[in-house]
């Protein structure tokens, strides 16, 4: 697609939404294929590995719980990075990026909450306790929903993007709280055993399926994120075209009245 009109040259090449659409169209099939493959491998490994001597088969919940919990935080981090892009460089793709990521983050957080509850019932004997880790994840979920609501409450897309960027950055305080809540408050929840400075302490029997599933989840996120960004770009183009059409129509009738 050649685009030589006004205003384009000043924007970086990669930033061009048109470029992004073209590039992502080429990449997406590959991403989908690799994600599907990894999920197949991960699920196979997950269900053929042995159960834990303490936790029994419930340890298999880990293979969905932990990746989705990680992703719920990573998604927010991606949004925070995009938010910086929005505020500092006023990058249109950054706007689109954090807007598109919010529903995905909410979904992954919901998965972490649901699977965590399903794991908690056999392990702790209750679906839900108000401990620091669980509550901070719940708060993260609320923050995702709040951001979605904020984006829907404003019609001016770029202003909505800048304001939610501010809130995203302020809310980033919550991420370290989630991550380190198990260390700061003594809780029921498991302390970190994979993502540690001194290397993972988890048994390799569980580590490998977990890692594969984690990569699969991450790729799934990026695939969906790319797709959602494309949708958002299209949505904005459509509304811009509608506006222009309406304006032209308005001009014609006004001109007709004037003559």
């Amino acid at each position: 697609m050649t685009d030589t009109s006004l205003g384009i040259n000043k924007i970086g090449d990669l930033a061009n939404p048109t470029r992004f659409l073209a590039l992502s169209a080429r990449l997406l099939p590959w991403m989908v294929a690799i994600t599907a493959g990894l999920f197949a491998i991960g699920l196979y490994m997950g269900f053929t590995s042995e159960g834990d001597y303490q936790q029994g088969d419930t340890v298999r919940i880990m293979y969905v719980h932990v990746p989705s919990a990680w992703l719920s935080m990573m998604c927010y981090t991606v949004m925070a990075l995009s938010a910086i892009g929005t505020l500092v460089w006023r990058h249109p793709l950054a706007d689109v990026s954090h807007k598109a990521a919010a529903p995905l983050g909410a979904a992954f957080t919901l998965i972490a909450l649901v699977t965590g509850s399903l794991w908690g019932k056999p392990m702790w004997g209750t679906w839900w306790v108000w401990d620091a880790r669980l509550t901070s994840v719940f708060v993260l979920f609320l923050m995702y929903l709040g951001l979605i609501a904020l984006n829907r409450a404003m019609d001016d897309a770029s202003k909505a993007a800048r304001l939610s960027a501010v809130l995203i950055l302020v809310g980033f305080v919550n991420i370290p709280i989630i991550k380190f809540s198990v260390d700061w408050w003594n809780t029921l929840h498991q302390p970190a055993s994979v993502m540690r400075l001194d290397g993972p302490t988890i048994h390799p029997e569980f580590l490998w399926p977990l890692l594969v599933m984690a990569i699969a989840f991450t790729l799934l996120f990026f695939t969906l994120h790319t797709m959602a960004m494309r949708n958002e770009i299209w949505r904005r183009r459509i509304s811009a075209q509608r506006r222009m059409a309406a304006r032209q129509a308005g001009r014609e009738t006004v001109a007709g009245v004037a003559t």
Partner: protein
Amino acid sequence: MTHAFYVYGSYVATALILFGMIAWVWLDGRARQAELKALEAAGIRRRSAAAQTRETE
């Protein structure tokens, strides 16, 4: 398998949420593309095209 309900329950829940997500993104994309096509069919062009026609006027 011990605790089958919880294990399968969590996998099913995950699958439901994920497929819901995927379906939403996918269908949204389809709808947007359809709208774009409809607009193009209605003769509304992108800016570059519009700018060129204005120059030739």
